[in-house]
């Protein structure tokens, strides 16, 4: 796996290497050009000066050896040479420094006035310049009346260029060596710096890598982090917090579900084993009751899952809320009587809304069922309906036992029950969560409020007309 540190190291070294290469090339090129130009100018000056010492004496080319400039060409170790060709191409004069060696004929270089590299016979590397001119007569008196036609003379002046080459080679070596040294130092320094500067990032990555489902309580430090990492750390902490809450909810849901199902399964199993061992203890009514309880739990859980996923279908049509509430209340009449309860209706004659009758019925059934189940004996369950500004409200108020204000927010949590032991009854704490989920899917709301006289009011409200189809919650 390639890391940012490795990538940065590689790219920084590559970038630094390229810069050094280009820099060295520029320095070398510039210096080479400057040195060569300087060399050439010296050579050209020498050639011009020498040309003034070349004379024509009765058709013969001579060089005034008494001239100071000519004396420089006398010593072989001086490293400067010249050679003069006459009109017919014959060599007329050569510098003593050439000894038995000869300069090459300039040929194509005559057209340009530039210098060129060449070698002496014998292999000595030299740089030469060629001048084509008419030498002045040796006898100044004949200048006005020359005895013969002007003589075209070719003068080639050359100098040993080994020093120049050596200087350039030394420069190249110095540049290459220093570049390599800088590159090596960079190679050592860059990883160290990157390791130090990227340490917070690596610490962040290491901490993130160690996070598992069991360590979601971990939080990333945000103090002392570089500015670029602070928002990442903050967002990761937010994400962890949400994940932790989601995991906790999931775990709680699983625990609750396990408990809700384990108890009836334990009851069923013990009843079955008891009946098998002692057939006279067989109790089919209990078995049926347990089966119905489990069926109720599973049905409500499935309904909740469907509504939560938005897979419940709705069919919007007129729903007479007044009639529906009274019909559901009649179904609960026996349980109402057993609990010594009474119903009190305050509903408009025909409170009609546009909604899904099946889902609305399920909501009303759950709310009334809840009121009947948890009302104190000898109390009244009051159902009040209102209609105002294209919105309806249904209030279900009953007197509850052992419920306080702190419990109200939990009423719509799945499997929540006041009694932590979840003792007895066929209620699994799914009725109100299901009712709220259904209400939300219809674009309505379901809220709860408890007053100081232990009267719990569940309010189902929403628009009187909706064409909303059930959606995910």
């Amino acid at each position, binding site marked *: 796996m390639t890391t940012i540190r490795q990538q940065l190291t590689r790219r920084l070294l590559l970038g630094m290497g390229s810069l050094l290469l280009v820099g060295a090339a520029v320095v070398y090129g510039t210096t080479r050009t400057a040195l060569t130009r300087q060399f050439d100018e010296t050579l050209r000056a020498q050639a011009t000066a020498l040309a003034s010492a070349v004379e024509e004496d009765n058709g013969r080319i001579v060089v005034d050896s008494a001239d100071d400039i000519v004396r420089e060409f006398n010593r072989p170790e001086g490293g400067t040479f010249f050679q003069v060709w006459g009109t017919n191409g014959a060599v007329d004069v050569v510098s003593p420094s050439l000894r038995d060696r000869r300069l090459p004929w300039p040929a194509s270089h005559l057209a340009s006035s530039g210098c060129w590299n060449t070698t002496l016979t014998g292999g000595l590397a030299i740089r030469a310049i060629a001048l084509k001119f008419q030498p002045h007569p040796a006898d100044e008196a004949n200048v006005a009346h020359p005895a013969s036609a002007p003589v075209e003379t070719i003068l080639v002046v050359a100098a040993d260029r080994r020093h120049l080459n050596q200087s350039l080679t030394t420069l190249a070596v110095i540049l290459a060596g220093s570049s390599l040294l800088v590159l090596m130092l960079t190679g050592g320094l860059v990883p160290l710096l990157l390791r130090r500067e990227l340490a917070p990032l690596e610490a962040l990555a290491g901490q993130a890598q160690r996070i598992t489902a069991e360590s979601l309580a971990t939080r990333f430090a945000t103090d002392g982090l570089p500015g670029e990492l602070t928002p990442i750390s903050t967002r990761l902490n937010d994400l962890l917090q949400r994940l932790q809450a989601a995991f906790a909810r999931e775990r709680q849901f699983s*625990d609750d579900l*396990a*408990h809700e199902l*384990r*108890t009836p*399964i*334990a*009851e*069923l*199993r*013990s*009843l079955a*084993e*008891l009946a098998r*061992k*002692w057939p006279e*203890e067989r*109790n089919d009514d*209990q078995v049926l*009751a*347990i089966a119905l309880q489990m069926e109720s739990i599973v049905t409500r859980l499935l309904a909740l899952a469907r509504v939560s996923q938005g897979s419940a279908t709705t069919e919007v049509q007129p729903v007479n809320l007044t009639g529906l509430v009274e019909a559901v209340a009649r179904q609960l009449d026996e349980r109402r009587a057993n609990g010594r309860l009474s119903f009190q209706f305050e509903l408009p004659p025909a409170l009609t809304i546009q909604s899904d009758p099946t889902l609305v019925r399920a909501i009303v059934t759950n709310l009334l069922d809840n009121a009947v189940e948890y009302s104190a004996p000898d109390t009244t369950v009051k159902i009040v309906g209102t209609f105002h500004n294209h919105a309806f409200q249904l209030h279900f108020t009953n007197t509850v036992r052992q419920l306080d204000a702190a419990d109200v927010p939990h009423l719509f949590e799945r499997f929540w029950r006041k*009694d*932590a*032991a*979840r*003792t*007895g009854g066929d209620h699994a704490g799914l009725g109100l969560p299901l009712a709220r989920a259904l209400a939300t899917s219809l674009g309505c709301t379901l809220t709860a409020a408890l007053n100081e006289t232990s009267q719990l009011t569940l309010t189902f409200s929403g628009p009187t007309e909706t064409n909303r189809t059930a959606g995910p919650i």
Partner: protein
Amino acid sequence: MRVLLVEDSVRLQQSVGAALRRSGYAVDISGDGEDGLWRATGEAYDVIVLDVMLPKLDGLALLKTLRARGCATHVLLLTARDQVADRVTGLQAGADDYLVKPFALEELLARVQALCRRGYGRKDNRLAIADLEIDTAAKQVWRAGAPVKLKPREYQLLEYLAHRTGAVVSQSEIEAHLYDDEATLMSNVVESALSSLRRKLSAANPTPLIQTRRGLGYILEAPPQ
């Protein structure tokens, strides 16, 4: 043997209670933690089968209170929680055993029986006093090699006396350990059961094993050689 079942599920109360009674235990049933604690501290139980999630007072709090009050009765915890941490918490609170719902009734009975044995310092299912042999697992009795047919109450009386071999057991102790709240105790119920038991045990060997200590109680021991 007398067992206290503290369980809030009415159906489990009925089925487990019936299974325990059918297995020869005297069973008292309690539906919440407060009542369970009151019974557990007021009566002499051999084993308490205790649900963890109880109304009014949860099982773990009940157990801790019991242990704090010096009650050493063996406790079998019964719960829907199956995580290791839950078991550790239960055992650390003073439970002797742990059973997760749903459970096999046979397993519960076997664990209750094992806890009863441990209460009398025994690890073996077989008890032997002279030529009397008792298999507490199969609930069978032999005298001088011959099987002895006993009624459940007679068997429970014999097993209880056998567990306390060599010790004088008072009539009230017998009543406390063998008869639950549902039994209607007549004044001579223990004497009557003892008389019947003695008669059946002497069928194979007339040497009496159960002696009466006037004013003190009864003792089951091997006759002197």
